[in-house]
């Protein structure tokens, strides 16, 4: 246990700004040899920026990074340089070549040579030894693509470690693995830990943190919240730290208002054992007219995936969905739209806006898709609709014909909101509608959500910010590790109860 104390990496007072945003402000991070150190935080906390700064993908403006063997502070200019300084990263999407053999993936760029040619025999032998050392027994002469993702990940780790990594960064390695594979990965991590490698483990899964990690560093809004020993930080407190509320204060905060429309009780949508393999386990859920139902849970908990499965963006593998008491089967989102649904996706840029099209076209596109190709909305109707929602949602644009990509993030979001409101859906899914949006717009959107529910629409609201959820939702569904774990009724809603549920404490039924 003597190596426990040896520090292999220190980052001090790291700061980094993106135009208009402080990404990291004065962050410290310390990694010791032979420890597994979880790096945690919600969206925009600065985890990935910190990793990028460390591995030379991004530059940083202030602070210093020191590694154990170097006297001077280091500045990595590329992932390659970071690797030379003993810092290797393994990402969720494995950065290896699937078509090359396992051995090649381990040795590419530093293949053993004999008389000017690659010495395959030695390479295969060395690879075999290397993997055996890590207790992985596979045929190294086979192409990588023949192996499961878990093994590919382990090979990536083996490569990283073999390139003399003192610091190994695992960036959400478990997101696409099943339980069995995760267990194997943990075995490997513990093995490396015993050999003195310092591991930074970025993950969203609380269970995993408590299973395998020694320390946790929590970031929030680009600042350091603190470094904690796993044993001394209960889950609820960890969630509180990530979400930004000091646990002791929570009890005193009451729900901000009681202005939610009471659900009329009429069931609009009913899901029974609905699931999509790999993203969300089977769940039962009833959604009523006139309610705002919140989905809460950490990133990666399956909150977006649950919504996508209802909407048919991911086709349900099992279970049954009923809309207004009638059984429906969604093959594609258009079916859901025809059943009266709308969906504002989490990833605005890649799934929301159609960048080169005008504000007008972006607003009318969903309605037009629903009407079909041959029933084109007249130009006059299109302009009327557009102007109506530009006015109603106070969209700031110089003209309705401006390409949407020229608008600010908040205004883009309003356009997409307008797109769905124009469809007049019975059920509207809003996945992170306020992310990356200025405070004023945020408040407007929250108000709008409540108002829509009062008018009888059912709204599903997903957000990382609990306060926002409390302000808008009349009921909440809690998800953890791709599974719906409970529901909180209106009278149970409070920050502490939510956090307990997210963290995996008992949910009072």
């Amino acid at each position, binding site marked *: 246990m003597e190596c426990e104390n040896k520090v292999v990496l220190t980052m001090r007072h790291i700061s980094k700004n993106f135009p208009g945003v402080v990404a990291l402000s004065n962050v410290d991070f310390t990694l010791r040899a032979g420890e597994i150190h979880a790096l945690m935080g919600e969206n925009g906390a600065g985890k990935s920026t910190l990793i990028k700064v460390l591995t030379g993908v991004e530059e940083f403006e202030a602070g210093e990074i020191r590694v154990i063997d170097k006297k001077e502070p280091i500045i990595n200019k590329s*992932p*390659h340089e970071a690797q030379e300084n003993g810092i290797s990263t393994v990402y969720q999407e*494995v*950065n*290896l*070549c*699937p*078509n*090359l053999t396992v051995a*090649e*993936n381990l040795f*590419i*760029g530093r*293949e053993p040579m004999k008389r*000017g*040619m*690659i010495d*395959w025999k030695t390479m295969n032998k060395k690879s075999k030894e290397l993997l055996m050392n890590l*207790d*992985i*027994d*596979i*045929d190294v002469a*086979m*192409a990588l*693509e*023949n*192996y*499961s*993702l878990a*093994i590919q990940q382990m090979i990536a780790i083996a490569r990283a470690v073999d390139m003399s990594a003192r610091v190994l960064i695992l960036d959400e390695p478990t997101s696409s693995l099943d339980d069995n594979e995760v267990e*194997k990965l943990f*075995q490997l991590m513990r093995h490396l830990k015993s050999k003195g490698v310092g591991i930074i483990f970025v993950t969203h899964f609380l269970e995993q943190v408590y299973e395998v990690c020694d320390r946790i560093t929590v970031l929030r809004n680009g600042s350091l919240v603190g470094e904690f020993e796993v044993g001394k930080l209960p889950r609820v407190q960890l969630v509180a730290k990530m979400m930004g509320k000091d646990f002791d204060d929570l009890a005193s905060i009451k729900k901000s208002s009681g202005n939610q429309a009471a659900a009329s009780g009429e069931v609009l949508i009913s899901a029974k054992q609905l699931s999509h393999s790999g993203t969300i386990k089977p769940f039962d859920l009833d959604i009523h007219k006139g309610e705002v139902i919140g989905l809460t849970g950490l990133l990666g908990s399956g909150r977006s995936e649950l919504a996508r499965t209802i909407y048919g963006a991911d086709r349900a593998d099992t279970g049954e969905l009923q809309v207004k008491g009638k059984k429906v089967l969604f093959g594609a989102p258009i079916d859901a739209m025809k059943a009266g649904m709308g969906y504002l996706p989490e990833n605005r840029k890649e799934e929301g806006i159609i960048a080169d099209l005008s504000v007008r076209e972006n607003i009318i596109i969903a309605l037009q898709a629903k009407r079909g190709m041959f029933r084109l909305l007249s130009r006059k109707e299109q302009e009327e609709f557009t102007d109506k929602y530009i006015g109603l949602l106070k969209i700031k644009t110089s003209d309705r014909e401006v390409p949407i990509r020229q608008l600010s993030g908040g205004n883009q979001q309003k356009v997409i909101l307008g797109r769905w409101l124009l469809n007049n859906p019975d059920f509207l899914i809003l996945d992170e509608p306020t992310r990356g949006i200025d405070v004023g717009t945020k408040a407007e959107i929250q108000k709008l959500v409540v108002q829509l529910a009062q008018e009888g629409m059912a709204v599903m609201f997903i957000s990382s910010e609990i306060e926002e959820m409390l302000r808008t939702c009349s009921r909440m569904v809690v998800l953890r590790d791709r599974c719906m774990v409970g529901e909180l009724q209106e009278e149970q809603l409070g920050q502490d109860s939510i956090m307990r549920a997210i963290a995996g404490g008992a949910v009072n039924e």
Partner: protein
Amino acid sequence: MNFRIKKMDSKQFLLLITIGLFIVMYLAGMVVFQDKNFGKLQVFLNLFISNAGLIVAATGMTMVIITGGIDISVGSVIAMTCMLLAWMMEIKGMGAVPALAIVLAVGLVYGLVQGWLIAYLKIQPFIVTLAGLFFARGMTAVISTDMISIKNGLFLKWANAKIYFPFGGAMNRKGVMVYPYLYPSVLLALLTLVLFFVVLKYTKFGRSVYAVGGNEQSALMMGVNIRRTKLKVYAINGVLGTFAGFLFSLNTCAGFVEQAKGFEMEAIASSVIGGALLTGGVGNVFGSLLGVLIKGTIETFITFQGTLSSWWTKITIAVLLAFFIILQSVLASRKVKVG
């Protein structure tokens, strides 16, 4: 921890289909055309003799396809090469050796330009080489719109030097013993093939070609210089294109504008039939040799059959191409599901 392999390697599967296809076709030919001596060694050797140029072109094509690119200009490059050789030797009175050297240099420059446009300007390979196709064909016409026959002594000596086998001879109708033979062009083609097999398998450059085609992003992360690799591949491919043109001209001994039309399709088809994945990352020069032989066998069929016309070659090749492209797509989509 012991891990089982899930399924058979899809690239082995593709190659296996090709090998099986060739054997079945050839055996079928031996049965159907028994009376016409399809089984004779010389018939088999003729597959190589008439396709020496294609073997070299398909080698280059396979390398390009492994990077995930394509080159559809090779037919025109061959026409340009033949014309340039003929023009230099016959009109300008140059020797065969300097003419060959110049032609190869032209191929290098041509390949470098295409490579730069693709690797550094990131223009789709298809567009670049489509323009290349028209450029080279047009240049052929710029050199001369009339056909030029090659009469250079040394060149004709290269072209007609038969290399006889010491065995396997047979009496012909006049009672003269005839031994099976090859031309030097075949040896040069096979030498090129072996050379590139070694380059692709045993050099760092060769492996980076595969890495680039497998996953560009990953290759970059692992320290492969993607742009330089691609530039090199297209430059080499340019040289191979003109070299294939040289071998082609040894067969035709002439340069004319319409020469080698559609040749690029034969090269692409050979590579694809030989197991090269058009999405990149997978391919084997020996596979492409098999592809060439399959195409040659189809042609031999049609010649032996006598009444079928030459366009059947095109259609059969296109059908094979379609079959393999769709097969690749199906295999790829299955893989996505597993992952």
